[in-house]
């Protein structure tokens, strides 16, 4: 859970040099109010979310990155097996709450969404507005 959320002033915070922040990398940035933000570099995009899990406040952005598990059905809706789908999740390491990397939505209940932060890239560096 999050505390002290209010009209906190935000500013651009340095994350990494673009060249040092490759797909699959991530950084945890702490803003001026002590709040942690997880910044991900994945394929051609950057994503940034609150690092406080909506379940019990765990470090949501600090766990495993893993593809969504998908059930496969065959003819007649028979169960065939399971595969890893293309979309990527990040998992809170405390209890396993899984979030969609592209939206920050909790995949078990998409009403739950992590706070999202803007990421900007300029002059060879990546910044998060937090």
């Amino acid at each position, binding site marked *: 859970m999050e505390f002290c959320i209010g009209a906190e002033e935000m500013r651009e915070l340095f994350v990494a040099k673009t060249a040092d922040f490759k797909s699959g990398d991530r950084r945890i940035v702490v803003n001026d109010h*002590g709040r942690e933000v997880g910044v991900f570099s994945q394929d051609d995009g950057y994503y940034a979310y609150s690092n406080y899990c909506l379940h019990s406040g765990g470090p949501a952005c600090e766990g495993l990155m893993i593809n969504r598990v998908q059930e496969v059905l065959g003819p007649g809706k028979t169960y065939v097996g399971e595969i890893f789908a293309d979309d990527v999740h990040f998992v809170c390491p405390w*209890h*396993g709450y899984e979030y969609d990397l592209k939206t920050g939505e909790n995949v078990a209940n998409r009403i739950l969404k992590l706070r999202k932060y803007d990421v900007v890239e300029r002059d060879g560096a990546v910044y998060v507005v937090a």
Partner: protein
Amino acid sequence: MDIPFKNPPPFEVRNLVPGGEFSTVDQLRHAAEQAVLRKYREFVIVDVDSHHYENENYREVFKYIDSPVIRRQALESAERPGRSSLLNGQVGYQDIGGRITRQRGRAREKTEPGEQRDIVMTKRWMDSMGVDYACLFPTPMLFLGLHPQPEIEVALAQGYNRWLCEQILDVDPRLVSMLYLPFNDPEAAYRTVKEFGHRKGVTGFMVTSPRYKPVHDNAYMKTYALLEEMGKPISFHAAYNWNDQSMAMLNRFISVHAIGFMMYNMIHLTNWVMNGIPERFPKLKVMWIESGLTWAYSLMQRLDHSYMMRPSDAPALKRKPSEYMREMYYSTQPMEMPDDKSILEATFRMIKADTQLVWSSDYPHWDFDLPSVIYDLPFLDETAKRNILGGTAAKLFGIDPKVVKKIPGDIVVS
């Protein structure tokens, strides 16, 4: 209060750096933040159900087994990689395919040479969460009641209990335990209470629930009488048995876990009440561990409903089953969180949570709870919160409710 904050440079996820060190304190730093914000420093928190991994100490534990033959077999079994071949296990993948990173990471956590690792590791998470005292239980031994050889259960219980008393409970007053009762051998269970009942840090005795001996068997009455006389609670710690004929129909761990952890405690509690054990031993304290809360809410209603029509089937009872159940203790974890909190509030009322509910973390297992599951409930007043988080358990265990924790990052109060 606005604390001037200087933001540190961005950092990698330290606990995931390949080959790097794992840190419990780092992974639980948000728990410590919660503990500071909620001022846990002001009151005692007792965790009635936490765990260590006794299999990491098998070589030492097995040395304490009395029988030279079983000791030899046990020590030999510990020399080969993997689970001890002398002991039974269960299929179960708590770590959700590696998603619970501490399960694997703990092996990379450093402790100083010469320190008792279990004590150090346990106190790290305790301080991070704001816990003062923790009742420590084993992990693989939760399935030992299913071992086909009762004498192995007895031998390991005896060895483990002695090891735990000497190496952990005698050493650190913040760690207590309800010791393992080898329940498949009623005489050995009695002897266990006799031998260990007065040891330092022994706050009661624990029966692992997956087993097939009914709790109302006459063979147990003298053990219950002894526990009642000593004022030590008996607890039933839930677990599952995937090989149970009913459980074997379930194809996923999530399903076995959800039902298995309720089922055995429902059966034992039903036998306990319907056979009038509370009438025979009215001062014996009973605790039900790790089944969550919804089962009790349900069972109270089911048993009352049937009892009103069939009192002749339970002639020992002088009151409704739910009234006996309201005098028992229940550990909180894994605490169900319905979207509609009024359902949880009703459950708390039903089990008389203010005096009968005791908080537990189950840390480091996959579905652990923090104290905030209780502290943040909107329908509890401060007194009820403090009772559930520690006051009630401190009384039950005979613990001096002195605050001794050191929450990382908290201000020091002299």
